[in-house]
């Protein structure tokens, strides 16, 4: 009897369930859709509320986050200080270079560098080899912050319109290019502008004539010229450099080619041993390495140039 009653009861209930009025079926469909939407909405949210629901968890996460932010600020501060020092040092070198009486190409010509060294009887460890061994590589650090935090600095404060009259006057040749400069590059030029009034009128004219040429050079050439200039400027007086440059200009093409070849040989001799190279290869980034130069014959003007082609 029970089984029969259950069977008939089920049958009747099924029929009553199947014959629901349209208003009820429509309401059920709407309710179902609402439930599915709510579930999808909830599934789309990460389980943050659940995970961080307890006060202990919130404090733990907060403290961890605060520590992390603290470390970041400290690291950023240290790096910023280092960066400012680098900007100052590079600005000083650039200022000397753009007022130097020798053209920039002189410092990119390996033949002239060898000629100068030979004439002065200096060991080959000054300009050429010091470059190969990685001198003046602090320049490379110049890019780190801009690369890590592109646009992080407020370039609005370095906008051309916001510069002082003296700064605008000193950097007038760069006005059209100013917006294309990265914040760090602008800072470097502003440091040069702030010391511009210390130059003699002749130096000021020469500096402004050289500015556009300097910024239009490939970054690798600028780095190269900077590194070599930095290594010879103290060792060789300006007058001597000028004299040697004039003598070098009078050399025959064959003689110059011999010097370029000699420079390449010196560079090869001064290149790191496999062990040194291994150590150099382990350095953090390729941008931080000055690669061995290519053949002097194929690229005489910038035979010692680094591979980095970043603007500076």
């Amino acid at each position, binding site marked *: *009897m029970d089984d029969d009653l259950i069977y008939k*009861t089920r049958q009747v*209930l099924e029929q009553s*369930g199947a014959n629901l009025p349209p208003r009820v079926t429509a309401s059920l469909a709407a309710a*179902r859709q609402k*439930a599915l939407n*709510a*579930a*999808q909405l*909830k599934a789309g949210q990460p389980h943050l509320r659940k995970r961080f629901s307890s006060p202990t968890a919130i404090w733990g996460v907060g403290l961890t986050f605060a520590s992390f932010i603290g470390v970041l600020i400290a690291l950023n501060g240290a790096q910023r200080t280092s960066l400012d020092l680098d900007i100052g040092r590079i600005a000083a070198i650039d200022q000397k270079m753009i007022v130097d009486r020798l053209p920039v190409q002189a410092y990119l010509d390996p033949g002239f560098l060898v000629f100068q060294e030979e004439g002065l009887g200096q060991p080959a460890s000054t300009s050429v080899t010091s470059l190969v061994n990685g001198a003046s590589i602090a320049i490379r650090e110049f890019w780190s912050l801009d690369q890590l935090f592109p646009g992080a600095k407020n370039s609005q404060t370095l906008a051309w319109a916001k510069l002082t009259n003296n700064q605008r006057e000193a950097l007038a040749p760069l006005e059209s290019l100013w917006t294309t400069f990265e914040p760090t590059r602008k800072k470097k030029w502003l440091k040069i502008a702030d010391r511009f009034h210390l130059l003699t009128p002749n130096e000021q004219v020469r500096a402004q004539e050289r500015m556009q040429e300097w910024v239009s050079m490939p970054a690798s050439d600028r780095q190269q010229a900077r590194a070599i200039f930095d290594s010879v400027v103290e060792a060789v007086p300006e007058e001597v450099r000028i004299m040697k440059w004039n003598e070098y200009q009078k050399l025959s093409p064959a003689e110059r080619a011999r010097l370029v070849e000699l420079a390449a040989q010196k560079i090869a001799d001064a290149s790191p041993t496999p062990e040194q190279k291994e150590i150099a290869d382990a350095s953090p980034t390729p941008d931080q390495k000055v690669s061995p130069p290519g053949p002097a014959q194929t690229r005489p003007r910038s035979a010692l140039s680094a591979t980095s082609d970043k603007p500076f």
Partner: protein
Amino acid sequence: MNSKALDHFLVATERRAFRIAMIGVKNEETALDIVQLAMMRLAEKYGHHDPTEWPMLFQRILQNAILDHHRRLKVRRAWLSLFSELVPAGQDPESSDYSDTLLIDIADEAHREPEARMSQRQVQAELNAAIGDLPLRQQQAFLLRYWEGLDITQTALAMGCSEGSVKTHCSRAMKKLSETLSFLKP
């Protein structure tokens, strides 16, 4: 969460859920609200569970919602009884909660044809009335076991009681229904 599986489950369940809620609360609007509530809670809280758990979980939510409705009703009645003297005779302030249109319509129809052979719709009405007259827990146990097809363990979980209680409720429900629905006897 598998939305498609949940959708299929709700489609397969919603009509029976409505009938169960209807029998439990005897009001269409309230029954629809309860079914919607059960669907929402299942989807939000248990949507990521194994779909095999959904039938039991859904029924538990549904039955709890029906129980909650009755508890609220009981409290309201207790308060209203205090003011019963102020209510004019013949007007039941609770009447709207019991205006089960389906049951009333069917009951009316049954009254219009007292001598006629019981139609399918009349059988349905008798059955609805008989189940509706069962105590709520017996009603729940009976519907979950014999309509929803849950086993004793699942029914006990859905009802939040022991398996022994389920057996007792089912046994008493069957006894009463077999007395009331004697016309179904062969």
